[in-house]
């Protein structure tokens, strides 16, 4: 069982790659136009023409699922980038410089962690409005404390190490030490966190969109599809089941990848 992480890594990589391929393909090709309505053939079950059936406007569900992957990847990538960037700056300042800045910044991170994630996101969309851009910003902000904590502990440990002291003694600027010397050495826990953060962003986006407070139609999103499908479960169960499975798969893939990567870096588990 010592090689468990390699199973995790493989499963994660396979799922993420498959999803990525689907996303790239969907940019150029979907079986039907995902937005083309055909009210006469609404809420159909699976047929050879529509392998997942059609939704309440007669749109091809499979095509919409494919296109929805673009939203999922965009939301995950952008919000992780936002969270990682802000978290790195905050954690860097707190860990590297320490003192009152550390105290102030990390206590506010503690305060942010106190909010259940979805509440932070809801708070921001209340004020800034719905839509994909604001959802990504809200989810990015939601992820900041996690990245900040990890970055802080990395910088905190690294600043006492010889190579940092040496760099300092020959007059390398703090900024350069932080981002050119230290960052490459503490990057792996951040990559793990980014992978897990990607998963939680996808999950949170789905939740918000399901509530009708996230990605808005006509932007395709698996969460929005769940929002639209709930009323029609009896007539077209696949309309609800398919997007849920896609969300689960993508989240699962990134969780596995992140966990596998973490164990790979953990000498005790190797």
């Amino acid at each position: 069982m010592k090689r468990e992480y390699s199973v995790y890594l493989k499963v994660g990589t396979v799922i993420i790659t498959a999803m990525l391929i689907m996303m790239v393909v969907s940019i150029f090709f979907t079986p039907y136009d995902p937005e083309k309505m055909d009210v006469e053939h609404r809420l159909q079950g699976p047929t050879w023409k529509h392998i997942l059936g059609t939704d309440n406007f007669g749109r091809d569900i499979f095509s919409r699922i494919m296109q929805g992957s673009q939203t999922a990847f965009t939301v995950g990538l952008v919000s992780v980038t936002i969270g990682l960037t802000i978290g790195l700056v905050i954690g860097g300042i707190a860990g590297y410089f320490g003192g009152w800045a550390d105290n102030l910044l990390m206590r506010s991170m503690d305060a942010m962690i106190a909010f259940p994630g979805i509440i932070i996101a809801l708070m921001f969309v209340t004020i800034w409005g719905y839509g994909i851009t604001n959802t990504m910003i809200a989810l990015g902000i939601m992820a900041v404390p996690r990245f900040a904590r990890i970055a802080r502990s990395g910088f905190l440990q690294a600043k006492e190490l010889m190579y940092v002291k040496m760099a300092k003694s020959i007059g390398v600027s703090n900024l350069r030490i932080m981002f050119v010397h230290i960052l490459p050495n503490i990057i792996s826990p951040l990559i793990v966190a980014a992978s897990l953060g990607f998963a939680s962003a996808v999950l949170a986006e789905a939740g918000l969109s399901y509530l009708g407070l996230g990605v808005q139609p006509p932007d395709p999103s698996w969460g929005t599809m769940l929002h639209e499908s709930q009323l029609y479960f009896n007539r077209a169960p696949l309309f609800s089941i398919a997007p849920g499975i896609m969300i689960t798969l993508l989240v699962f893939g990134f969780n596995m990848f992140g966990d596998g990567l973490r164990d790979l870096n953990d000498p005790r588990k190797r």
Partner: protein
Amino acid sequence: MNYLIKRTVSIVFILLFVSILTFLVFEVIPGDPVLAKLGIDADEAQVEALREELGLNRPLAVRYASWISNAVKGDLGTSIRFDMPVMDLIKDRLGLTALITAMSLILIIVVGFPLGILIARHENIFGLGLSLLSQVGMAIPSFWLGIIITSVFGLSLKLFVPGQYVPIAEDPRAGFSYLFFVVLAIAIPNIAVIVRYLRDSVLEQKGQDYIRTARSKGGGENYIMYNHILRNALLPVITVLGMLTANVLGGSLVVEKVFNVPGIGRLLIMAVSTQDLPLVEGIVLYLAAIVVLINFGVDLLYRVIDPRINLT
């Protein structure tokens, strides 16, 4: 005692930060609430008058001070949509959400711990399979699970009528059995979380030297499992319970909508979609404060249970 004082002070600070964050988020709203109310072509005097009336001409710090002192006294302002004190609205709904959260936590503990131990005991392909399954469980969105549960148990098996929550005060049996399905949707992904943490924790203990010593002294597998490994492995999992509470509460906020349960989540979502800022602000502050206090409680519990940690 020293530790307790230190922890309490830090909790007070965190609560202070929570309230400042909430206040600032709602204060830096893009656009001027006064202009929004009066229209862009309102004249200076009118604008000034309304500013005065709403207290918006005072410095930010003064406004925060009066807002937070009111909040501590239980006055969170008035909801725009309901035209009622925010506190009363929260009080009406909080009980149900608290009940759902408590029931979910109980289910998570009662199912999660034995399951986690069972999985941890099997360090073979079966264990790996179950551990993969728990990873899948963690990835399932609870609201989607709610939709599936509604259709399977509600629409097909007719064990409850979807969307028709019966208040517990009216009919305890119907009420609780309805809530059971709500709780199921919230609990399953979180059971997976507990299982996973417990398994990691047990596996970590298994590799420790003291276990090898126990084994070399001739301790049976069961004896070692229950008297050595679990006693040490369970402790770190308790800290996860604090995090789970926030998870469960957040899950409940969304799942309430799936099952149409009139808890605080429905209120919050209604408040968000009608832009009822005082109501959103009040709920956010209230829930965050609860989560902070629960985490504080869990932390204390941890210190009490683990005799190795000195409280002084």
